[in-house]
C-alpha cells in the first residue's frame, strides 16, 4: 500500500465506503499512536489522541492536498493534537516507569544482554528528554520522515530541523552516558 492507495482509499470513503477508511486506520494507527506516546509518555493519552486524530481527519478531509503524502498530513494532525494535549495538561507529567514503552528489538545473540542494557538506557534517556527534543527525534528516527516533512509538520525550516535534531541527539547521548555511570 503506497500513497496512491491512500488517496484511492480517501476517495472511496468520500463516496460512502467506510471500510476504506477503516483500512487507513488499521494501517496508520500504530505510527500515530507511537508518535503520540513518545510526545505524551502516557499510553492512555496516546490512545485518546489516536482516536481524536482519525476523527479530525474525517472532519478536515477537504483540507487535504493530494499533492502531498497522506501520511505526512496525518502526522501533522497527530503531532499538533499531541502537543495540544500536552499544553492542556500544563506541565510535564511524572515519568511512568512501568508504562508500556517500546524497547529495542531483539539484537544478535552475541551481544543481546549488552544491547538490551544499552537499549534500556536509551529508552530511559529518551523519556527524560524535553517534549521538543522527543518530538523531533520521534519524527526522524521512529517515523522515518524527511527533514522537509518534519519542517512542514513543525512549521519551521529545514535548517532549524537539523539544528534541533543535532542538539537533541547530543542531549540524548549525555543522558545515556549519565545513566551508564549510575
Amino acid at each position, binding site marked *: 500500500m503506497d500513497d496512491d492507495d491512500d488517496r484511492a482509499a480517501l476517495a472511496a*470513503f*468520500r*463516496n*460512502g*465506503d*467506510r471500510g476504506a*477508511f*477503516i483500512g487507513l*486506520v*488499521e494501517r496508520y*494507527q*500504530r*505510527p500515530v*499512536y*507511537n508518535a503520540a*506516546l513518545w510526545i505524551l509518555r502516557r*499510553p492512555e493519552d*496516546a*490512545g485518546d489522541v*489516536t*482516536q481524536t486524530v*482519525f*476523527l479530525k481527519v*474525517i*472532519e478536515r*478531509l*477537504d483540507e487535504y492536498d493530494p499533492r502531498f503524502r497522506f501520511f505526512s498530513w496525518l502526522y501533522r494532525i497527530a503531532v499538533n493534537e499531541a502537543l495540544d494535549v500536552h499544553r492542556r495538561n500544563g506541565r510535564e507529567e511524572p515519568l511512568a516507569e512501568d508504562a*508500556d*514503552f*517500546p*524497547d*529495542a*528489538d*531483539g*539484537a544478535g545473540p552475541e551481544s543481546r544482554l549488552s*544491547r538490551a542494557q*544499552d*537499549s534500556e538506557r*536509551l*529508552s530511559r534517556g529518551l523519556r527524560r528528554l524535553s517534549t521538543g527534543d522527543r518530538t523531533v*527525534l520521534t519524527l*526522524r*528516527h*521512529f517515523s522515518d520522515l524527511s*527533514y522537509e516533512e518534519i519542517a512542514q509538520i513543525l512549521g519551521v525550516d529545514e535548517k532549524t530541523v537539523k539544528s534541533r*535534531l*543535532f542538539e537533541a*541527539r*547530543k542531549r*540524548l*547521548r549525555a543522558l*545515556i552516558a549519565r545513566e551508564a555511570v549510575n
Partner: protein
Amino acid sequence: MNADQLTGCMHAVLDGTATPEQAMLLASVLASDAEAAEEFESWKAVFRGLAAIAPAHPPEGLVAAIEASIPMRPPRTADRLAAPGQLLPLASVVASTQPRGIELPARFRALFQRPRRPNSTQEHGQMNVNRKYWAGGAIVVVALGVAVLVSGYPPKSDNLLGTVVPAERYRAPQAGAEAIKLGEPATAQTVSTAAVANQAARTEAQTKAEQTNAQGLAQQNDAKNVAQQNDAKNVAQQNDAKMTAQQNDAKMTAQQNDAKMMAQQNDAKMMAQQNNAKNIAQQNDARMQAQKTDARMQAQRSNTN
C-alpha cells in the same frame, strides 16, 4: 573543522543524508584521528539503538473504537459547503430532492423546517406566511385557554355545595298476570332470537381472544428471530475481530523483520564506509610515503650532483 562541525558530519553520515564530500572528509579524519574515531563509534551506538527500538502496540480495541465513532454517512463536500443561495453540484441537488419517509404538503412542510435567513424577496414572503401560520396557531391555543378559565371547567372542590343523598332509582310498573298471555307464537320467537344473538356475541369474543393469542405468539416468534439474528451478528463480528487481530500480528511481524533488515543494512553500510575510509587512509599514507621517497631521491640526486 571544529568539534561541532565534525559531530554534524558524523550525524549526517549515520543519518544517511551526508554528501559524498562529507563522507570523504569524515573518512579521512577518522583514519588519522583516534579520538574522533572513538566518538564516531559512540554516535554509531546511539543511532543503532534508536533504529532498534520497536514501535509500541496500540491498545486492543482502538480500531473498533474509532470505527464506532465514524459517521455512518461520510461527510461530503457539497453538504458541508452548502449555503443558502449557493449553487450545488447536480448530483447533490437531485439527492436532496429525493423523498425521504413521509411526505407532507408543502405548506405544512414549511412549518417544520429549520428557520434560516431569507436570501430573496420571495423567500422573505414565504417566511411571513409561515409566521402567520404560527401566530394563528398561537392565538387558537390562547383562546382555548381563556375559554377554559372562563367556563370554570373542571369545577373546583370549593364550588361543590349541597347534601349527598342516595339516588332514587326509577321503578317501572310491574307487569301483572293479566299482561301475560300464554301460547302466543310471537313471544317464543322473540326469546329464541335473543338467545341466538347472545351465542353470536360469545363466538365473536372467542374469535377475538384467539386472534389476540395468535398475535402474541407471532410477536414472541419475531423476538426470538431477532435475538437469533443478533447472536449471529455478534459471532460474525467476533470472527472479524479475530481475523483483524491476526492480520495485524502478521503486519507487525513483517514490520519487525523489515526493521531488522534495515538495521543489518545500515550496519553493512557503515562497515563499507569504514572500509572505504581505511582504504582512503591507506592510499593517503601510501601517497605520502611515495612523496617522501620521491623527496629523498631528489635530495640524494641533488647531493650526488
